[in-house]
């Protein structure tokens, strides 16, 4: 793996197919599930069934699936507010997530968290955080805990490229590098922070080079090619579990939609042309082509997959709609730990 102290950006290209072929179907289904889920969430939002802020993941599916599919069940995952896709990839059910977006008692945060605050402790899914960069030190903290307990767990932290300019990024990566924590820091580089393009917010645009400040490898990865993402993930996890320290991945991807439901996909800060161009390397289409080439997918199989995903998402929406609101008394619970269970 390239250490980032040299100038040339390292782009991980499609790797050999062999090792992963058996998992393509699962990956493809999960990417379709994420996309369909997000489309449905967008519909629900636009008719007021979902409130607050809602940030969709459409276009970035290969990043979450490629990275999370390679994790151990006891590893930790943490992200920002654009985390529906990562939550699904980590195995939280569409029902529990959709119900959370609806604010229902059956949601994965009991209706108290919402779209930006999805949690599932049993799956090591640690949120869902709304303050840009705030999850980066937390991710380093999970890695610290893994090192403390000698469990060889990995802590996987997702954040947007705009978060690479905030102080917590610098402080957390320095300590992670200094202490060789088993952490993998993922810049989900979709090119924009709200309406601000990378070149207007970062003094350098090859963000993987920042790894050099922290004594860790920095790798640029093609985020539309799930195989490239998966390969980068495995290298980074192996390094982390071996006690060799953290890795910074700069994963280049695209956000097909607006920053949030209240932002247009194109217009003010990016052109329709740019947006259309970005869709040319669609992560789902790329994997489908790869599978067809390898004779692992035909129209019938794809149709069946798409149909089952649609059904699962429809079921999740129905479940969310029919689920009860939290009890009024829930307003007052979960502020403090139940008494009598001191450590």
């Amino acid at each position, binding site marked *: 793996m390239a250490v980032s102290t040299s100038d040339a950006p390292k782009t991980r290209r499609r790797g050999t197919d062999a090792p992963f072929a058996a998992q393509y179907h699962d990956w493809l289904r999960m990417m379709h599930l994420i996309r369909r889920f997000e489309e449905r969430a967008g519909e629900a939002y636009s008719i007021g069934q979902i409130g607050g802020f809602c940030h969709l993941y459409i276009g970035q599916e290969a990043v979450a699936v490629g990275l999370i599919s390679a994790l151990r069940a006891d590893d930790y995952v943490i992200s920002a507010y654009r985390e529906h896709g990562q939550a699904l990839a980590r195995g939280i059910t569409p029902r529990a997530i959709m119900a959370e977006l609806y*604010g229902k008692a059956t949601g994965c945060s009991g209706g*108290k968290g919402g779209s*930006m*605050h999805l949690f599932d402790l049993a799956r090591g899914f640690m949120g869902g955080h709304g303050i840009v960069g705030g999850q980066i030190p937390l991710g380093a903290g999970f890695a610290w805990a893994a090192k403390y307990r000698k469990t060889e767990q990995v802590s996987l932290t997702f954040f947007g490229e705009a978060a690479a300019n*905030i*102080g917590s990024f610098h402080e957390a990566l320095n300590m992670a590098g200094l202490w060789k924590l088993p952490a993998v820091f993922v810049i989900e580089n979709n090119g924009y922070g709200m*309406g601000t393009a990378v070149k207007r917010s970062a003094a350098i645009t090859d963000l993987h080079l920042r790894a050099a400040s922290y004594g860790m490898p920095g790798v640029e990865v093609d985020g539309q090619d799930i195989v490239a993402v998966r390969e980068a993930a495995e290298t980074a996890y192996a390094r982390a579990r071996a006690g060799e320290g953290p890795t910074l991945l700069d994963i280049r991807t695209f956000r097909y939609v607006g920053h949030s439901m209240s932002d247009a996909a194109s217009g*003010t800060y990016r052109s329709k042309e740019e947006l259309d161009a970005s869709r040319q390397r669609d992560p789902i289409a790329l994997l489908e082509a790869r599978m067809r080439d390898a004779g692992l997918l035909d129209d019938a199989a794809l149709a069946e997959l798409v149909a089952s995903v649609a059904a699962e998402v429809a079921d999740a929406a129905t479940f969310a709609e029919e689920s009860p609101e939290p009890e009024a008394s*829930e*307003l007052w619970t979960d502020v403090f730990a139940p008494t009598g269970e001191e450590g």
Partner: protein
Amino acid sequence: MATLTYRDALNEALREEMQRDGDVYLMGEEVAEYNGAYKVSRGLLEEFGPMRVVDTPIAELGFAGIGVGSAMTGLRPVIEMMTWNFALLAIDQIVNVAAKIRYMSGGQIGCPIVFRGPGGAALQLGAQHSQAFESWYAHIPGLKVVMPATPADAKGLLKSAIRDNNPVVFIEGEMLYNLKGEVPEGEHLVPIGVADVKRAGQDVTIICHSKTVAPALNAAKALSEEGIDAEVLDLRTIRPLDEEAILRSVAKTHRVVVAEEGWYFAGVGAQIVDLIQREAFDDLDAPVLRVHQADVPMPYNKYLEKAAKADATKIAAAVRRVCYKD
């Protein structure tokens, strides 16, 4: 007078002050090309260009410090916090530098800066995005804290804040931006530190600010049908607090309810209670009661959120209690 939204009133204040003084500039996330996350700065980049309307990276501590530094040299920055929740990351520069630099330097170096943006809760934004921090900033000597509730006050107070030679924490409200009202054109200055009687009344005083002003007026309306004539006093400025206006009203009504958006413990209302019981102990016919957010992080669910928030119903109920009419 033109009828403007609170948003456009702020925009007008910014435009007029930037036209008036070339040292005034606006800096923050998405303020320029995006016209502001809440469109408060619409059109300003076009009119004033990229040195005076400046998009920043997401780095609240850093650009707050850049603003403070530039103010130490005599520029008059307006630093937009996309919301005040994010200002927690910048609070060291606000509290340890902006508020103290004049004092630490023995009066040599001033800091004419405005930090502005929406505070408090909107709708279903969850615990991290729904916080009212005015009591925190008001706690700090060296800061002024301004919180307009109407479009006219928004314009007049922002203009005064920009001309003020001290650091001003200017807290708006996402839920107020679309509020419409009459706004005087041109040179309309509302002085910092002066409260405003939004409704005159005889029986009880409702002290409020920012997002609790409208509910207080609604409560007063409802109560008038029950024969309770409530005075609604809008603080407009939290620091310096208009103590005379508060005591004047209390001397008239002898009963007080303080309504604020934030949490109760050591909130702004607690300070007002302290003032009243100290300075008007014998005027009071009943204990002062407070209305505030439920003492919990803000929940996402819309019904729980509604139950958590201060509103007209809760204000009216508190008024009935201080009037012993419940």
